[in-house]
């Protein structure tokens, strides 16, 4: 069964450093997303991406964040200068385009720890 994969599973970084989180969405999906979940809190939307551009972003997704689809399979989230409060689980998701709201399938997540 096709699934979303994410690497690395755990990333530890120093405050101020840049990190890149990687995702491989389900192969025939067209919409891609990043969400995050701070420990003990709700899953929060960060950004959606379609046709090689951002279609929507949340207030959390400020200038320190960027997304890219560098090739036909990968989808990345970059945080330029990490802060302590960026520590969270980051989930990538993808969905097929059917012209109506459709199911988003999530990856296993990357646990980001900022020291």
């Amino acid at each position, binding site marked *: 069964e096709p699934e979303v994969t994410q690497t690395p599973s755990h990333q530890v970084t120093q405050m101020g450093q840049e990190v890149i989180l990687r995702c491989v969405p389900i192969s025939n999906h067209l919409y891609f997303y990043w969400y995050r979940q701070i420990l003990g809190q709700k899953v929060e*939307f960060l950004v*959606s991406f379609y046709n090689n551009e951002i279609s929507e972003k949340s207030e959390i997704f400020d200038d320190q964040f960027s997304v890219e689809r560098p090739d036909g399979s990968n989808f990345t989230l970059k945080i330029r200068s990490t802060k302590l409060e960026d520590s969270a689980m980051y989930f990538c998701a993808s969905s097929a385009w059917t012209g*109506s*709201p459709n199911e*988003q399938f*999530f990856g296993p*997540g990357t646990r980001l720890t900022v020291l």
Partner: protein
Amino acid sequence: EDQVTQSPEALRLQEGESSSLNCSYTVSGLRGLFWYRQDPGKGPEFLFTLYSAGEEKEKERLKATLTKKESFLHITAPKPEDSATYLCAVSFSGGYNKLIFGAGTRLAVHP
């Protein structure tokens, strides 16, 4: 403000003891309501999509229903392996395809 509220926060059941989880929502123009299961340290696992009031979906011991204001996830004769956090999320008009999640219900089923 668009909101999704789940209750109870936590639920402890004995194996075989049926119960229901609630998800109430206040969004403008519901486009879809989604139920996910999340195990500790893992990503949400898709369970159901409901699009309109009166709709019902079933999968094994789980049944999801939708009204104009809330959704219920009914668990019939649960087993210990049903223990997880159950998340409700909504998609709404003007929100493109982003999902707004509730805080979840932590379900523990004991033998």
